[in-house]
């Protein structure tokens, strides 16, 4: 949403409402549902082929039964009632028979009606479920950048408001349209039967009618699309407002939020009013134009009879008879009415298509690409420290496994293309990596090398410049530096939430781009500063790190990370249900749970990104000691502002404005009396 979106919206005309998409750079500029949406939606519906066939047949049967009741009466009177009139001893049997026959037709019609309504439920709900599930599954594959740039509430709206529009379309509009279509077709055939010229006349008139309807329907449809967008917008705003409620209250910002909300609410109102107005007037327009047609037909009929016009129908050639004219007049109404019903349903369909195209837009968002082929496996390490045997068991040793066609030179080839320096680094990394004799397995040791890495979220504005650094296996590496120096960005690159623009990252001599993302991420535990917990018990939240962990394992991990003591003090201990992102807990407690969650995953390497920033220093020391023990011999990256957090690291790198300006151990750096020293003693700020 742009800043303009917060501006108060005065009275807006139709055109303004339609054109204000331009004010919102984030939203899709498309004013109509994307072409192909209907086809795609039918793709989902057609999965229920058998049921659809039964439903279509049932709808036709029900429509026939309904149409039958109109024709029934005349026949009844002419053939069964009038002959009995005046007879002293009338025979009722034929009439009873006819009524029973009719009753049977009605029974079939009613049953068909129930059957298609019943079967439609499965189709409609099934389609909705499939679409919801597909959408969520696809959402899981999207890159982090998507989530960083799309409003959450707007995405959520697609799961509820937009899928909901499908419910109406599938369960009401489509069947209604089909049934009306059948009625119209029946009327058309009957008209042709009686008179071809008159039918042509009605068709020409209907064509004009359809032209008017098209204007109405397309207007209405456009506003319905708009309504769905605005609804998503309101949804996004509410989500943000409720999640930030504390800040709103602390700043007495309720009124401003309300004003902001009302502006969005007004836009939704405008779109909704316009959409519904066009939708509502469709039927009166069709109905009354139908009367116009009727009058025209009556004039036509009058002239025809008076002038003894010639007529030809499918039955033959003759003149217009009185009966023919009267029948034609009735039929013309049976033909135009369904057109109105169809067009009225059309607005519903437009709305559903608007919803569907928003859904498909999410489904079509480019997923995270993963061209990696190297996987992570557990290995049994031989006594020589070089022989590796692949195993399913967790041994505490992991290895990178290349696919059969990969001879292990790919990363060096990539480096060769990059620069001589990169090749040199890759060469060295390769030499130091422990690789099996067949070249398929490389021991995971946590050797991470950055070569001339440049990266910016916006490629034009790099956040990191020519970063080159090496992490030796088993080291604890700290990244310190002022806020905004690019520390978190570095971790985003290692686990490939984002990809480097220039340069190369090697992990045990393998280009990270060659490693399958799930395996790469499995190899790196990560604890972030902003903790996200999920609805569920504390135990469930810890178990998130390793889904098959036993309760004992979870508790052991909590003990290790010093979370156990406070968890036991919660009302229900480990079974305390956390809701709303665990917001009843303090930030520090949430961080402790998130560290326990990473500990239970027992990762081969670990990134702690300001993971202990809200934990008091003494608790932090205990947590650190625990984690150091767990991670002994494994590479750990620590990002922190607080120097007490990084003091006992093997290597400390000082970052400033996306560049490394110093590196060494705590003691070395202190002795150097450089920036770190000044930072440590508080006499320098890195900005």
């Amino acid at each position, binding site marked *: 949403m742009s*800043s303009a979106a917060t501006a108060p919206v005065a009275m807006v005309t139709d055109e303004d409402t339609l054109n204000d998409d331009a004010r919102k750079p984030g939203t899709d500029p498309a004013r109509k549902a994307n072409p192909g949406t209907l086809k795609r939606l039918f793709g989902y519906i057609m999965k229920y082929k058998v049921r659809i066939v039964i439903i279509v047949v049932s709808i036709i049967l029900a429509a026939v*039964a309904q149409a039958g009741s109109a024709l029934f*009466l005349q026949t009844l009177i002419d053939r069964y009632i009038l002959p009995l009139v*005046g007879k002293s001893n009338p025979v009722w049997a034929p009439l009873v028979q006819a009524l029973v026959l*009719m009753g049977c037709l*009605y*029974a079939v019609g009613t049953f068909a*009606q*129930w059957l298609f309504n*019943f079967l439609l*439920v499965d189709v409609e709900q099934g389609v909705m479920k499939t679409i919801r599930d597909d959408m*969520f599954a696809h959402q*899981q594959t999207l890159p*982090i950048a998507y*989530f*960083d740039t799309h409003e959450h509430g707007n995405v959520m709206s697609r799961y509820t408001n937009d899928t909901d529009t499908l419910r109406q379309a599938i*369960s009401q509009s489509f069947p209604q349209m089909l049934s009306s279509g059948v009625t119209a077709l029946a009327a058309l055939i009957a008209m042709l039967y009686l008179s071809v010229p008159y039918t042509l006349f009605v068709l020409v008139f209907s064509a004009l009618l359809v032209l008017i309807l098209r204007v109405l329907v397309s207007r209405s449809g456009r506003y319905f699309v708009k309504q769905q967008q605005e609804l998503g917008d309101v949804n996004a705003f509410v*989500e*943000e*407002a*409720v*999640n930030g409620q504390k800040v709103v209250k*602390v*700043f*007495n*910002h*309720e009124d*401003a939020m309300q004003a902001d909300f009302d502006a969005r609410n007004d836009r939704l109102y405008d779109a909704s*009013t316009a959409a*519904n107005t066009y939708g*509502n007037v469709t039927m*009166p327009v069709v*109905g009354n*134009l139908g*009367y116009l047609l009727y*009058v025209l037909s009556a004039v036509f*009929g009058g002239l025809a009879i008076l002038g003894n016009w010639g007529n030809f129908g499918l039955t033959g050639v003759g003149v217009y008879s009185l009966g023919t004219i009267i029948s034609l007049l009735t039929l013309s109404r049976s033909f135009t009415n369904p057109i109105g019903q169809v067009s009225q349903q059309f607005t519903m369909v437009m709305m559903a298509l608007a919803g569907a195209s928003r859904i498909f837009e999410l489904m079509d968002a480019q997923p995270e690409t993963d061209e990696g082929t190297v996987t992570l496996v557990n290995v049994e390490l031989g006594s020589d420290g070089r022989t590796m045997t692949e*195993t399913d*068991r967790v041994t505490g040793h992991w290895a990178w496994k290349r696919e059969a066609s990969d001879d292990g030179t790919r990363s060096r080839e990539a480096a060769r293309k990059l620069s001589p320096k990169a090749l040199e680094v890759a060469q060295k990394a390769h030499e130091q990596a422990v690789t099996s004799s067949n070249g398929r397995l490389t021991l995971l040791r946590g050797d991470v090398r950055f070569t001339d890495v440049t990266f910016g979220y916006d490629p034009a504005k790099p956040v990191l410049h020519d970063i080159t650094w090496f992490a030796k296996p088993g080291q604890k590496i700290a990244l310190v530096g002022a806020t905004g120096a690019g520390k*978190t960005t570095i971790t985003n690159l290692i686990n490939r939430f984002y990809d480097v623009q220039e340069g190369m990252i090697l992990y045990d001599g393998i280009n990270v781009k060659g490693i399958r993302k799930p395996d790469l991420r499995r190899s790196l535990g990560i604890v*972030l500063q902003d903790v996200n*917990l999920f*609805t569920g018990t504390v135990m469930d939240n810890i178990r*998130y790190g390793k889904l098959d962990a036993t309760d004992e394992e979870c508790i052991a991990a909590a003990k290790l990370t010093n979370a156990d003591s406070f968890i036991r003090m*919660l009302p229900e201990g480990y079974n305390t*249900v956390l*809701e709303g992102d665990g917001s009843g807990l*303090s*930030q520090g*407690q949430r961080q402790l749970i*998130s560290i326990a969650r990473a500990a239970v995953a027992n990762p081969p390497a670990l990134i702690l990104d300001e993971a202990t920033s809200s934990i*008091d220093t003494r*608790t932090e*020391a*205990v947590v650190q000691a*625990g984690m150091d*023990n767990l991670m002994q011999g494994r590479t750990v990256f620590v990002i922190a*502002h607080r120097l007490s957090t990084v003091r006992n690291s093997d290597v400390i790198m000082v970052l400033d404005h996306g560049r490394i300006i110093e590196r060494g151990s705590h003691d070395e750096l202190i002795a150097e009396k450089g920036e770190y020293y000044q930072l440590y003693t*508080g006499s320098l*700020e890195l900005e």
Partner: protein
Amino acid sequence: MSAITVDAPAATAAKTKLPPKHTIRTLLKSLREYKTASLLSPLFVVVEGVIEIVIPSVIAVLIDKGITGRSMHDIWEYGGILIVCAAVSLGAGFLSGRFAAVASSGFAKNLRHDEFKKVQDFSFTNIDRFSTGSIITRLTTDVTNVQNAYQMLIRVGMRAPVMLIVSWIFAYRISPQISLVFLACIPVLGVGLIGMAAAVHPIFERVFHTYDELNNIVDEDLQGIRVVKSFNREDHEDRKFSKVSMLIYRQFCKAEKMLSINSPLFSLCMYTSLITIAWIGARQIVASGNNAAVGLTTGDLTALVTYAMQIMMAMMMLSMIFVMVIISRASAERICSVLTEESTIREVATPVKDVKDGSIDFDHVSFRYSVNSEKPVLDDIDLHIRSGQTVGIIGGTGSAKSSLVQLIPRLYDVTEGSLKVGGTDVRDYDLVSLRDQVAMVLQKNILFSGTIAENLRWGNPDATDEEIRHACQLAQADGFIQEFPDKYDTWIEQGGTNVSGGQRQRLCIARALLKKPKILILDDSTSAVDTKTDKLIREAFHHEIPDTTKIIIAQRVASVEESDMIIVMHEGRVLDKGTHDELMASCEEYRSIYESQTQQHSAQDLDKESQDWHEEEAEAAAFKQQYMHDEAAAGTKTEGGDAR
């Protein structure tokens, strides 16, 4: 938003409160300026409906006199009347459609407005009762359902009964006996519909509850996507989602399958009446010899059937409305429960609007987030802070430092004891006046989508550019803001994901400073800021806002060292208070915190730390061993299986 629910059953019990009474009355209060449109729409519908009944008689005359009578003059005349009728009907139809759209969209708009307003007044206890996902659905999907039902109601809902009654009266005039057939349908339909509504309503209530759950899962997945991805939990999330999605599918199917008997039920009644009418009609016609003077004629029968059709159409419409109302009833109740929810934080009748000064007095304050919790979060706090003092609060994780300060702007109410600001109990203040004078920088720093300047103006909407810049300079934020290409117009994404944690903290401090409050609370708000900047911020406070009471919660002793008073918290109690020097002398806890941070360990502390270390080492080893053991056991099993 506190969110520790004591146990699941209790939580759901709280959620499934009795449906509020007078749902309709409560909702209709939100009609306001759309009352006129709501009345005009049905009025025009009635006009439309009446014309609709008049038109067939005009047509009958047109056919009789014009076509059958071969009179071109009559064709023109009655054709003209018909066209005038159609024009009036079109006008009425257009107006009723327009008014219905305005009324229903406006009603929905007001409902959303009222709900949002109400939600803004909610205390965190209230929000917990609903959950974020649920509040969102109640403001969007539920309102849309009510809007559709309302529109249906004022248009078709008016037209159908009019058509039904008028048609029935016409039928009655032709044959009272036959018109009774229609009346016989009413109990059948009534019983069927009421039974169906009773069966379906609870399911719809459940469906919407499940929808909330779905919304929550999506929300959490979006918020925690980094966690999901770094643990490779995409499939796990997928399974969670599918489970709830399946539940919605099942519940909806069940409810809608029950509803699927709705229209067949109507058809059944209608078709039965048709055949009955035909039978009775036939007998009467034959009896009368088709003589109008004696009794029923075929023409009458035709007319009766036409009315029967019209009644059928009306009933069909009614059944559609009925289904819509059933679906929207659950929604209406959900909206209503938001509108009638009483904020747990209540205001007094004559609130104090003026906060005298920045003094704060805690008189034996105890606090629990939930009445059910066993142990109070804050236990008997007795603290007195003078206006203009700088107070540091320090203590371990979970020592309730944040809970303590959140009582001051009344984000929560004390459970026992009293809390006074400026000499007056906080509960006696006007909430807005109190919060205007208490600025708080929260631990979880939240920025909203908008530019930096827009975010900062939260503190003071009328702040000039200079004031904003000045506040940022004090908060040491101006420097990095100037480095952004768009400076103060830089766009902040939702939650502030595009600035670093430290930058976010400083923006939040600047935002608080712009309020020019009497009390400024920093809840661990400089944890991501480097020490030097931290110091600069404190110095700026000291010089620029000397009269403001400043409460600083920090992990770093350095952040609070120079405070007039330092409070050491431990497990919800005040362990000790005093100046740095006093505490160094008197408080062992404080000393050990201080020393753990400055590395000037005394021999004793080193021992203590190494002891901690060893304990941890032992625990880690145990953990590792157990872990490996479990895994090994699992691994051997599978391997053994392979071997066999």
